[in-house]
């Protein structure tokens, strides 16, 4: 535990000592703020149908997904690829630390950074609370959805980062796998076979996120995202082991 925590701490130092972290934070907030403003003014128009801005905010629009798909690879690309490039992986894996501890530590740091990214959006909720009634249930469920999606996507990114010593390639692989996971649900509409359609329906991240935003915490979604995330973390640890045998 202490060793994993040491890796988490080191990774956080790395995040916050590079300008990248601040660029990502600033861009993320700027985008989210702008989208939030758009949603609120859109819904202020009496002609639009009744909906809460926070429901749209959490995955209801393509902006949410676009940004998530771009930001996660940027967060994770450095994790292990950079250790491989600089050779520090050799120091790490000749100390009494296991591959699993390395992966978990790195991933946990990415998750903490991701949470830091979302933290300021709590302000939007507070702003809305000042001006109208807010049902906190769906808001909390929305954040649960954001965390679970983050878990899955960051695990994919961590895995991608073990595959290469080039950060850019790691980011591209992460992006491709995430887009595949995201679009597998969208393909649902194109499929005729009802069995396959049902399977893909369950894998549809957009509708899953929409459920969370509505306040539905469906355990099937939770299990799907956690288990796929865990699978990618497992693969990351294995890939780290296998790279040494080459």
């Amino acid at each position, binding site marked *: 535990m202490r060793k994993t925590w*040491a890796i988490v701490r080191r990774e956080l130092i790395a995040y916050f000592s590079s300008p990248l972290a601040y660029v990502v934070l600033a861009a993320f907030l700027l985008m989210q703020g702008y989208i939030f403003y758009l949603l609120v003014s859109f819904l202020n128009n009496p002609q639009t149908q009744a909906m809460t801005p926070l429901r749209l905010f959490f995955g209801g629009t393509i902006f949410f997904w676009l940004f998530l798909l771009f930001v996660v690879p940027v967060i994770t690309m450095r994790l292990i690829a950079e250790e491989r490039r600089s050779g520090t992986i050799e120091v790490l894996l000749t100390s009494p630390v296991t591959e699993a501890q390395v992966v978990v530590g790195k991933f946990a740091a990415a998750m903490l950074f991701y949470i830091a990214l979302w933290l300021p959006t709590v302000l939007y909720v507070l702003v809305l609370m000042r001006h109208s009634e807010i049902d906190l249930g769906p808001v909390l469920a929305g954040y649960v959805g954001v965390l679970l999606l983050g878990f899955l996507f960051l695990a994919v990114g961590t895995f991608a980062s073990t595959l290469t010593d080039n950060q850019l390639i790691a980011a591209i692989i992460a992006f491709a796998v995430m887009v595949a996971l995201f679009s597998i649900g969208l393909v649902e509409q194109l499929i005729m076979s009802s069995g396959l359609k049902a399977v893909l329906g369950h894998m549809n991240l957009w509708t899953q996120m929409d459920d969370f935003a509505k306040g539905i915490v469906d355990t099937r979604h939770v299990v799907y995202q956690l288990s796929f995330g865990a699978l990618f973390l497992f693969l990351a640890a294995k890939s780290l082991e296998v790279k040494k045998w080459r």
Partner: protein
Amino acid sequence: MIEVENLGKTYVKEPVVRDLSFFVPEGQVLGFLGPNGAGKTTVMRMLTAFLPPTTGRVVVAGVDLDEDPVALRRNVGYLPENVPLYPEMRVDEYLRFRADIEEVPRAEVRDRMDDVAERCMIGDVRRQVIGTLSKGFRQRVGLAGALIHQPPVLILDEPTVGLDPNQIIRVRELITELGRDHTVLLSTHILPEVEQVCERVFIIDRGRIVADGAPDALRTQLIGNPALAVELKGADGVATEALLGLPGVVAVSEREPGHFVVEHAPDADPREAVFGLAVERGWVLMALIPHRASLEDVFVRLTTREETVAEELAEEVSHA
């Protein structure tokens, strides 16, 4: 302290390390010498449980690599080639990180950090960001990191590469000092380094040990007798013969007129006799230089041989 039996490593059918066996007793400073690509780094990576060997057995400080690689890592301090560090961290942050992952007991972390900082002479830069340090300081920070858990065995892969001459001298002094209470294995292709620092040398070529011994012993064993370079003015044709007649001299050759190479027995020193001879015959002694075959010569001879000769040599070493 380090026991290696029939160690081998094959990358994609290409043998990089072949059937290596050796034993390093506690407290020895051992140099791995070899041209680039000889397999030095691969051997070191196997001894530190970074790479799993294809064949053979490794025991470091009583721990078998096969049985418990993580325990083996606890006994080894490793400084990889090119000293990989995290440039964004401060020196103290890095040392603390190393202490944490190397399982230094919490209560001792502070003391250990102070101790290695002092030994490696990095006390003045502990608050600095590693990326802003000079190469020499980074090397010492890397060493400090490798020492933090007081490992009985230190493995250093080319610890002086890229340093300026002053820094090289300092790092060498440090290694010599570390050799007093650690078993040290270092690799290098800088020959004077092993002569200065190591008690014992392995010359490695194409994944095999082609020579094993003390630097001095290797020199005489492989190069032959020591020699004097003698330059005489006014010497006539009889000089060669006259020099050969001196006690202890075993061979004389005249390289160019007036320039002689006088080979002598290792325990003899014919310099006085050469001087006396010159005085007696009325020759002017222009130069009298002991010509010690350097390890450089040994190295070049051993690593430029034909494949078959290298094989025979490796055979000889493993039988000895």
